[in-house]
């Protein structure tokens, strides 16, 4: 039962601490004084509050109590703000980077293409060189980063709350909040709390390196810079969700839980984190909007994976009803990233099909496009877990859907292979198609075939060199490809050597009608002259041609020799006596050596220099 004496005392205490009343009241803070002072004030507030509930109040009393309440609430609001500001402990970010469990999501892949650094190509297609080196460097950093960047074990509860305020402050804040809410000043309380904590979170964001980039800024980013920022976001986002936001949520609970009838803790939490959470997601959204160049695919997939990994934590932290609008953003943005990734793959396929360079690669060797595409495909197989989930439809083939010629392909023979695998096969098919087109720019037909042989063989080797690729593409298609390069090898040989072997045929050398079945010496002379000239030409020209793969080179030479040597030996055997030695330029051994000079990419003069040493 409130007595007038107690009420007056309480009122006096409250009036004494009215900020507008005295300099002292303005400069000193109650909650920085001793515990006794604090308790006295709180009791005074309680006293006034309970007196308010009495029904037997005169107008005068009621008015005085109302004033006192308002003054005390204003005061408590300032105290609340002060405690929050002066006692906040900033988030510890450094030890976190290590302590977050480092289970890699994918096992590091030993890739065959690591040794395949882009050669110094004389090809005029500079863009492809650039693209190739981008892909190579990206893959190195990507792989290292992926294995140490983020945790994956979802069975572990990964939330890591930290204490943002000392426990004494928390209990003080709770005492204040309790009274403010009981007096109907909930709104003021939320406002104060939210505005202070929002600034603190802002500061933490800065520390973690979360930037406030606009969409325009992100569009203007160079590829390297974008990569770096995505990497930084991936590292920071995890901390933001499981440490920063989780800690803020815990703090809200500690201060506001079970006070009043509305879920005060939820309201305060949302007030605090809504804008920062949006900032975090806006970055990802901006990335998903940016132009769909194929190089970005893998970093986008990294981003996709890390956001996906965060979903359970996001659901955890933002589980209240008011937080729903934040929670649902994540899957939406995720699906936009997925769409962007699909778009990039599609862009890549278009780019491979339409890659327009016409200048033939000297020597018929591996085209930079081939390397680029195979590197890219290898990376795709690295990411097959994620991409496999995202790519759900078959590639569109044939010219119907493009304003551009494209090969037809039906995938009936590849039933049962997942869509991603079909895309890989399609990519290789259009690569071949493009290479076929390029091969037509060689003036020499034989070189065109060599070019195809080299490039398709390279493709086959790459596939064979990776068990994942091989498994995805399947042996059936591998066999098809093998047939292609073997056929090209045969075509090449035929194109080059038919003319040569033609010189060594039997018919036409015997003079007709003569009794002694003699050999036409003039015809023979012509034959030898032709043979020598053609072989010279082939030797000189094709020494400069290149078959980079050693084994293939050997096989090709052996195959040539197998046809050439016996024919020549038998020709020599039969006809050398009919003609002066002047016309015989080559011995069998000379031919063998000559063929050994082929396809190394050196001029003949260099060969003879080497041999004479």
């Amino acid at each position: 039962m409130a007595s007038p004496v107690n009420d007056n005392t309480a009122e006096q205490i409250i009036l004494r601490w009215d900020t507008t009343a005295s300099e002292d009241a303005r400069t000193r803070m109650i909650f920085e004084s001793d515990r006794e002072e604090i308790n006295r004030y709180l009791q005074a507030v309680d006293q006034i509050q309970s007196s308010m509930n009495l029904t037997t109040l005169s107008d005068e009393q009621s008015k005085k109590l109302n004033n006192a309440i308002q003054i005390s609430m204003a005061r408590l609001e300032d105290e609340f703000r002060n405690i929050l500001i002066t006692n906040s402990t900033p988030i510890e970010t450094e030890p976190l980077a290590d302590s977050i469990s480092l289970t890699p999501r994918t096992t590091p892949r030993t890739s065959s293409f690591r040794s395949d650094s882009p050669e110094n190509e004389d090809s005029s297609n500079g863009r492809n060189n650039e693209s190739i080196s981008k892909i190579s460097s990206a893959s190195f950093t990507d792989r290292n980063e992926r294995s140490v960047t983020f945790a994956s074990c979802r069975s572990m509860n990964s939330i890591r709350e930290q204490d943002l305020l000392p426990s004494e402050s928390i209990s003080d804040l709770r005492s204040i909040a309790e009274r403010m809410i009981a007096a109907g000043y909930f709104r003021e309380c939320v406002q104060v709390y939210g505005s202070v904590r929002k600034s603190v979170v802002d500061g933490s964001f800065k520390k973690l390196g979360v930037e406030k980039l606009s969409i325009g800024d992100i569009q203007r980013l160079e590829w390297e810079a974008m990569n770096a920022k995505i990497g930084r976001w991936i590292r920071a986002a995890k901390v933001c969700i499981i440490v920063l936001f989780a800690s803020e949520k815990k703090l809200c609970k500690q201060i506001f839980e079970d006070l009043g009838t509305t879920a005060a803790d939820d309201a305060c939490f949302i007030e605090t984190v809504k804008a920062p959470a949006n900032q975090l997601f806006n970055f990802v959204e901006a990335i998903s909007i940016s132009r769909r160049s194929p190089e970005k695919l893998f970093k986008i997939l990294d981003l996709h994976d890390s956001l996906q990994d965060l979903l359970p934590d996001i659901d955890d932290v933002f589980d209240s009803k008011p937080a729903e609008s934040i929670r649902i953003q994540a899957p939406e943005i995720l699906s936009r990233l997925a769409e962007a990734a699909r778009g990039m793959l599609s862009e890549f396929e278009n780019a491979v099909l339409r890659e327009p360079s016409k200048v033939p690669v000297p020597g018929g060797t591996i085209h930079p496009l081939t390397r680029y595409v195979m590197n890219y495909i290898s990376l795709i197989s690295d990411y097959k877990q994620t991409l496999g989930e995202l790519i759900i439809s078959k590639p569109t083939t044939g010219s119907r859907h493009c304003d551009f010629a494209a090969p037809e392909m039906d995938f009936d023979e590849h039933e049962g292979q997942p869509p991603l695998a079909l895309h890989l096969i399609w990519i290789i098919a259009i690569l071949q198609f493009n290479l076929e087109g390029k091969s037509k720019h060689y003036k020499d037909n034989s070189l065109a075939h060599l070019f195809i042989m080299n490039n398709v063989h390279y493709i086959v080797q790459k596939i064979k060199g990776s068990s994942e690729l091989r498994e995805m593409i399947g042996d059936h298609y591998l066999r098809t490809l093998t047939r292609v390069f073997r056929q090209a090898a045969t075509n090449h040989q035929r194109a080059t050597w038919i003319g040569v072997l033609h010189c060594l045929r039997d018919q036409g050398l015997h003079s007709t009608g003569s009794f002694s079945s003699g050999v036409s010496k003039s015809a023979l002379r012509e034959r030898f002259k032709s043979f020598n000239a053609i072989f010279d030409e082939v030797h000189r020209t094709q020494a400069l041609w290149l078959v980079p793969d050693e084994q293939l080179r050997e096989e090709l030479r052996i195959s040539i020799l197998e046809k050439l040597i016996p024919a020549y030996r038998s020709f020599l055997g039969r006809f050398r006596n009919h003609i002066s030695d002047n016309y015989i330029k080559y011995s069998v051994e000379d031919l063998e050596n000559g063929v050994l000079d082929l396809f190394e990419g050196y001029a003949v003069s260099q060969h003879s220099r080497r041999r004479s040493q």
Partner: protein
Amino acid sequence: MSPTDTHVFFLNRISIRRNQVVSMDNNHEQDLEELELFQKHISDRFTQLLPTTGEEETLTSDDISDQMLSITWFRKLLDTYLCCESEFKAVLIIGRDSSQFSKPPLDRLLPEHLDRTVKALDICNAITNGIEVIRHWQRLAQIAVDALEQRPFVEGHVRRAKRALNTLLMSMTGEDKEQNAHAGKSAERMWSISRRGGAGGAVALPAVNHNRRAIISRSLSSNFMRSWSASKQILAMTTNLAAPRGGDSTGLGLPVYLMSSILVLVMWTLVAAVPCQERVGPHFQLPRHLVWTQPMIVLQEKIGEEWKRKEKKGTSGLLAEIQVIEKVAQNLVEFAEGFDFPVGAEKADEVAEQVAKLAEVCRKLEVGLGPLQLQVREVFHRMVRSRAEVLDVMDVVAKINTHVAC
């Protein structure tokens, strides 16, 4: 057809039309007709946004719902944008020879338009932020409403209302009405968040408590860097925005220009109305010689005038509801400052009227801000989608041309 229906319809048509050989003659007629219609529709739609003659736009009118620059009006504006945009895409892409995209003037105009779209995306985000700020103001106003709806008027409630309204007005106008003198110095000291070592004998900050409120409320965290400025974005969007002169064989230069102008106008209007970072008003001009743009010009002039008028006082945003809040809040603060208990019946009625107005506008905000925010997001996503579609077509064309040229 709603904007989304048109969108789906458009997508279906494009895959059929793409490979059709377009015969120049009869389609040329069709194209011209399409363009005429497009312009006419724009004009019609914007005419509907203008106040009908005789309608007063001043704050004395009680029902601001259909007033220009109210939330309802803005929703119509955004709807208008979406409709124009659908039609624009249809005009631009369907049935057109896409090789025109790589020739002048489209080879320059389209990328510029797309660039404006990107800037508009950022403005949409700024507006979304701004709507949150308005929500914050609404809550402060609600405190005052609740306090002043209590009878009889007591000093306690009035002071509470006054405190909330002062915070509100400081936030709206950026002015610190209380204790301006201390504002500068205390700022730095306040922001050193010191760790209390528990020793209790820490130096007491010679704090001026009220200023903390001011500075914190002003720095309501923005998701943009300090250097970002809404008005600079708008200004950048107006660069190179010029009506095409003759000599455009594609006939597409004009619709692109019109769509860009609409985009700029809509964004400019949003920035005028909603608080966002650095929005000191730029004023841009639409050329007068194009018949169809008349309603747009009239609209822009009206808003521009209003903006210039209010700018001198340092305004928080031209949104009708915000203007009401600002005015009523100022009235009520005046009342609160001259408050004398007991309040006479006449005075009480005056105040009650103002409070009712404030309550009404708070209710409008409560109901209207959510849908408005959603609509801004819808505009955002539509711009993203359209941009991607146009880019796709442009890329295809570019690659074909490279192939052919080599």
